[in-house]
């Protein structure tokens, strides 16, 4: 766990009778893009706010870059660039001046950094424009620029693609991946748009009603979300033995209902029917399932709250 840059240990947060977070423990490792998935009100923003210090957990601990106590946390937070909820900018100052303010605040001596960041997020055309004149998408870019100034080790972005147009989303995604790959910036981002996170994140935390219902890596998620073929047979054991012998590359499980589930099958459904038939096994059912991340999330949620 030493490579974790952000950890929360059983973090809870209550507002009166509302339990916004309920014992959430996440582990964000250095260099990964961690996607926090959840419905509106699931507790995503609350968790991110607790990490950046906007709120205090009612219970549990937040650990950033190994720091846990308040003084050390404040020091470690200087390595974080954050954009939580509304983009915090001065509406009557230009984009350039807003970033210059942040440069001075972060104590960055190199004045050229402002220009570089403006170019990096694609705001060169709007550098002199006042923030009040920016569109929603442009403000999101400014928010990212503010978060990025000072080359933080960690980026925390709350619903960063809200308000972006399709090409803006594409550009944003490309930028995040580039920052992660080239500068090894660890990114923790939240979204309720699952398809978007699926294309960006390498680790996923599923939040529902303030609880973390699963934390899973991309390869495991792909496995869990992959298409599968479920075959009902007259002799499951025999078919499994044949599968092992003739199709050793197949990944399968036998379900409690005594069906063979082929995960991401590499052959056509007819091929398996034929294989069973030629070995004297009767195929009584054959169903092809497509499971999206949405389906997976919905199933997880259902299972968590039953």
């Amino acid at each position: 766990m030493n490579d974790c840059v952000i950890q929360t240990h059983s973090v809870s947060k209550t507002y009166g009778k509302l339990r916004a977070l309920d014992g959430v423990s996440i582990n964000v490792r250095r260099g990964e893009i961690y996607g926090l998935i959840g419905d509106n009100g699931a507790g995503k923003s609350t968790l991110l706010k607790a990490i950046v210090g906007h709120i205090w957990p009612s219970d549990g601990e937040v650990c950033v870059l190994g720091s846990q106590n308040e003084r050390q946390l404040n020091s470690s937070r200087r390595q974080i660039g954050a954009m939580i909820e509304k983009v915090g900018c001065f509406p009557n100052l230009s984009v350039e001046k807003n970033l210059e303010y942040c440069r001075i605040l972060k104590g960055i001596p190199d004045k050229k950094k402002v220009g570089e960041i403006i170019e990096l997020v694609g705001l060169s055309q709007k550098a002199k424009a006042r923030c009040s004149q920016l569109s929603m998408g442009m403000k999101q870019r400014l928010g990212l620029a503010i978060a990025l100034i000072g080359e933080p080790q960690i980026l925390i972005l709350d619903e960063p693609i809200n308000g972006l147009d399709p090409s803006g989303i594409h550009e944003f995604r490309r930028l995040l991946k580039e920052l992660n790959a080239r500068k090894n910036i660890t990114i923790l981002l939240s979204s309720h748009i699952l398809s978007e996170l699926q294309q960006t994140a390498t680790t996923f935390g599923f939040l529902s009603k303030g609880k973390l219902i699963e934390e899973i890596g991309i390869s495991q998620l792909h496995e869990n979300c992959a298409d599968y073929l479920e075959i009902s047979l007259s002799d499951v054991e025999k078919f499994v033995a044949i599968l092992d012998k003739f199709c050793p590359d197949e990944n399968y499980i036998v379900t409690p209902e005594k069906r063979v589930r082929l995960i991401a099958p590499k052959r056509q459904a007819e091929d398996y029917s034929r294989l069973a038939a030629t070995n004297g096994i009767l195929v009584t059912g054959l169903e092809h399932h497509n499971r999206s991340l949405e389906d997976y999330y919905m199933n997880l949620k259902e299972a968590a709250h039953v």
Partner: protein
Amino acid sequence: MFNYIKSEFYRIIHSRSTYITLGVFLGLALLINIGLAIIAACNPGWGYGNTAFSFQFLLQLPAIYVCAAPILVYILYDDVRKNGNFKNVIAFGVSREKLLLGQFIVSLIYCLAVMLLTLGVYFAGAYALLRYDPLYTSADIMRQMLCVLPSAVASLVFALLCVNVFERGVVGILVWMAVYYLLPYVCQWIGYEVDFFARIAEWMPMNFMDMQGATDFFWQTNDGVIKCLVSGAAGFVIFGILSWLLLRRKEL
């Protein structure tokens, strides 16, 4: 914190509202003397077109410094809080204590600068446009200002507390007015029946500043100076502790 203070001054220097506010203060300072000069020019026998009358006008309004502080604090920080800029500062790792102290230092320097510039323009306007009368001079105003300064600083600290605690600016201003205007009156009224409240009321800035006459100014007496200093220091300590207690764990 030093970086926060530097960045705040960068913002202040580059904000239009700074210059508009300063323009309004300087304009009012000039306008009073221009008005007196015009009236004096139109009425040759009028006895008030002189520097002494102009300065006496300010000397009769010591509470102006106490009231100017919250106006300037709200101009500086109300929008900043609404726009979520404090969240950036906290997320950059500045503790709330340092943020508060930084705000206090920035607003104190800003208010002093606005006040000194305004007084400078007021003096220049008076000396340039009005007939000189040595009865009251700019030195009297400076003495009065120095005496009232602790109360003005306490008022500034309380205004910062209000701007940070109350989400809506108007609520904060109403609370400031309630504490600085309503509370002294209430204490005074209760004081007619209960002696303890009468003693408290006479140490409240708006009460002892109101009780001065047109020519006998409270800051010219030992008692007045002591009241100014003690009530200013007490306000500073009380509002400072209150700010620390209420804001060090404030969630954004």
